[in-house]
């Protein structure tokens, strides 16, 4: 029943969509910043084998999937990831202006997954896939498109795989849980995702309540 409503929903962005997506992206920037302050030591864990450092880099990808799950409009993943990247560029990013290209590419990975299902499916498997895709395109960007690494082939594959794995969990499962939590808190009133907590967990599942 709700799926029919979702399909008839307009693909154009309302003012609420734009402002919520923007604020979510900025809040993601704050979460990056808070994460940095508390966990600046976590990087040291990977000092002896740097290719696995991307196991925690899914952190940088979550705005893409979160934006797509909450807004449910074309471009939400790319827009949120780009704005979050722009915020980190303004705050001073490790990667300077190149965060914009990596932000775009990371957003694109998630965007393509939701585009493939015409923005009608937002269940757990698609969220996870989108997170992994975001890590994959992010990794590809780092190694081949705007190269920031010069690893040997095996290390490159490990580096990108860990990025995709991390993306699937930190930027896939967690944003999906967060979206359901937000819907259950009834703060998503004006948005297309306000019933997310009553939707089935997986494609083909039965809706709750």
């Amino acid at each position, binding site marked *: 029943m709700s799926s029919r409503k979702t399909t008839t929903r307009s693909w154009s962005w309302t003012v609420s969509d734009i402002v919520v997506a923007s604020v979510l992206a900025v809040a993601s920037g704050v*979460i990056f910043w808070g994460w940095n302050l508390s966990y600046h030591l976590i990087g040291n864990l990977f000092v002896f084998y740097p290719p696995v450092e991307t196991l925690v880099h899914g952190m940088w990808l979550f705005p893409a999937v979160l934006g797509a799950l909450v807004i449910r409009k074309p471009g939400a993943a790319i827009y949120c990831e780009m704005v979050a990247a722009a915020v980190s560029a303004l705050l001073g990013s490790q990667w300077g202006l190149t965060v914009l290209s990596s932000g775009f590419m990371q957003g694109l990975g998630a965007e393509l997954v939701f585009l493939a299902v015409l923005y009608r499916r937002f269940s757990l498997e698609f969220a996870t896939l989108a997170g992994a895709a975001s890590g994959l395109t992010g990794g590809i960007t780092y190694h081949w498109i705007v190269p920031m690494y010069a690893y040997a082939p095996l290390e490159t594959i490990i580096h990108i795989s860990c990025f995709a794995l991390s993306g699937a969990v930190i930027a896939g499962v967690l944003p999906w849980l967060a979206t359901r939590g937000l819907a259950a808190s009834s703060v998503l009133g004006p948005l297309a995702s306000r019933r997310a907590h009553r939707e089935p967990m997986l494609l083909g599942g039965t809706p709750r309540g």
Partner: protein
Amino acid sequence: MGEAPGVAVTAEGWSWQHAERETPAIAGLDLQISAGEKVLLAGASGAGKSTLLHGLAGVLHDEDAQAAGQLLLDGVPAEQARGRAGLMQQDPESQVVLSRIGDDVAFAAENLAVPRAEIWGRVDRALEAVGLGGFGLEHPSAKLSGGQKQRLALAGILAMRPGLLLLDEPTANLDPAGVRQVRDAVLRSAELTGATVIVVEHRLEIWAEHMDTLVVLGTGAGVRRRSPAAQIRTDEALGDELSSMGLWVPGRDPLRGLSIPRSAGADREDPPPEPLCPEPQGELLLHAGGLAVGRHSPTTRWRRGAIAPPTLTGVEVEIRRGETLGITGANGAGKSTLLLTLAGLLPAHGGTLTATAGLKGDGPGELLAADPHDWRSADLVARIGMVFQEPEHQFVRGSVAEELALGAEQAKVPGTAEPLYTPAEIDARVQRLLDRLGLRALAQANPFTLSGGEKRRLSVGTVLAAGPELLLLDEPTFGQDAHTFRELISLLQDHVDAGGTVLAVTHDAAFLRGLQARELKLQRGTPPPEAPAAGELFGGMRADSWLGRRNALAKLIAVFLITAALVVTIDVVSAGVVVLASLAALPLAGIRAAGLLRLMWPFALGAVVAAWGTALAAEESGAVLVDLGFTTISEGSLALGLALGARAFAIVLPSVIIFSTTDPTDLADSLAQQLRLPARFVLGALAAMRLLGLLAEHWTTLGHARRARGVGAHGGVRQRLRSTLSQAFGLLVQAIRMATRLAVTMESRGFGAGRRTWARPARFHAADVPVILGGALIGAAAVCAAVAAGTWNFVWS
């Protein structure tokens, strides 16, 4: 600005039912309001007052909602009457859109496509009308007080030349001085423009005598009553009716009939002759001697700059068992900071804070340190309870019952991991609280979905659950209706009667009277601390420098050219050229060497890490220097690593210099006007960017609240991770709430539809040419030097 006469409002059988709700917010409303009439709109919580105002402002449109009837402004459907009605909401932060006050006022006029030549005249007159004419147009909106922000919002509305002012509890979040200023500004503006006014407010005495008409809405129904506003003071039956809806009626004490033995003097509005409170006699619990408090930790350096000075110094407080103490004082005097310090959530900047044996307790309690900040949060919850101004900051569980159980579950015996309460005791406490708070029917409800009054009660209940002796509260009555006020006083009185102690920061005289609290008045010492404005996080804009005055797009193009030159090759020479050129450009950016060091050291560290990573993980070539077994460092990989590290540093340096001299507003103006990016998205992102500092403040408060609830980020990795995730979720909730209100503000000021004008043109000037040329030159020099030195190493080869 007399050319905007008032709008006549007509509602004909108007109903609205929000999507996902079972009952209509408002049904069958028939209402006529004449042009220029001043209406006070009242009704119980949930009577649909806000829905009506949103409808009149033309911002209600949801394809899944059920609507019927019509709302007309001068005969035109409200949604089509763009710019005729202006809406002010309760939360000052979401009423401001842009960072500079001139831009903020101009925003609505731009959205209505007012010609540029006319906009600034409107801005000046609007600021003058609300009494903010004394500030320059460039004044940062973040530096205004709550009341000033609301007046700024009013100016933004007036710049549209509206015929209808809609005010949704405009003063509920303000201190008494702010309340008067906002009310007077509204009344003056109405007089000046002849606009029709509709105000929603719980505290009727603020507006009663200045309004023409009182309209009372029935819950889920239409108009229940319409009378001349003057009757509020004279008509006893009307007063009873309004009181029963939880409204504050002039001359009536919301505590009447409540069995508070000591509140005999609190019947009338005027305060009793003055403090009858004798010096308290109970046992000393907490003692502050020469205490200095500050918002930022005294030990960790705020990222860019010296240690922040304390907000307040030399505080002497003695808190004794069984007393009620109210901390009052002007905005920015450091009241909340003091409270957080007394609660053991912020470290003291100086002086001493000592918890006595009376607070720590006997037996294992004696093991605790003197300063509550040194306690585990499991020890804190059972001794000092902190109720935050925003109840939602405290919520960490999925249901009311779990939320109530949490504090009791977390409480531990000092020095051990042993729970303080057995499961049976915890359950008994939860059951008792559910009844006492009147939340039994909502035990399984999600705390975020409760009404404002229910959230307030729950936030106190969650804290009481762990059985703390000392209860601290930050502005607990802000924005609450009279029913919740009464409930709150009664809850706190119970706590005191049971031997507990209450300390509250408040502006609310009725609250102090109701609890017969001893008053501690803070004098403002140092200048008021501001919310960390975005600029502070950005490391302070250097907008006055030569580079700061250049066109933002020109600077962006220059950095783009330099970055492109660095991206295409991995070599030390090109990186070196860019670093040297950037250092040479520092004087143009007004950055000194010491400042640069502070800005750049994390990135220098990052460059070293990048170099190390590649040295280990790149293909082996040349002699092996170190063999770690699973990998090696070779001559070739080390050289490649050094080149990558240098390149990473060189990529960051120019962007840090440019962004620390570029105001986001200027950048947005350039992106939308010169680069022609979609204005709706650019302005949406810009408005969100303004909330950066505020969101960072929410993040910090959410962290404090987690410690206060016994689930702080401490202990093992699992506990830290859980706490951080819960903090992140809390931030997302606040972010979306803020965004939803901000979207209403922006839309009610004409944003998002049709052509707009730009009050400030963004274009290139002659002085911007050297910026772009400079960028091109540095990029070209880097490439040429690398080729000449033979280090050129094309990345895509």
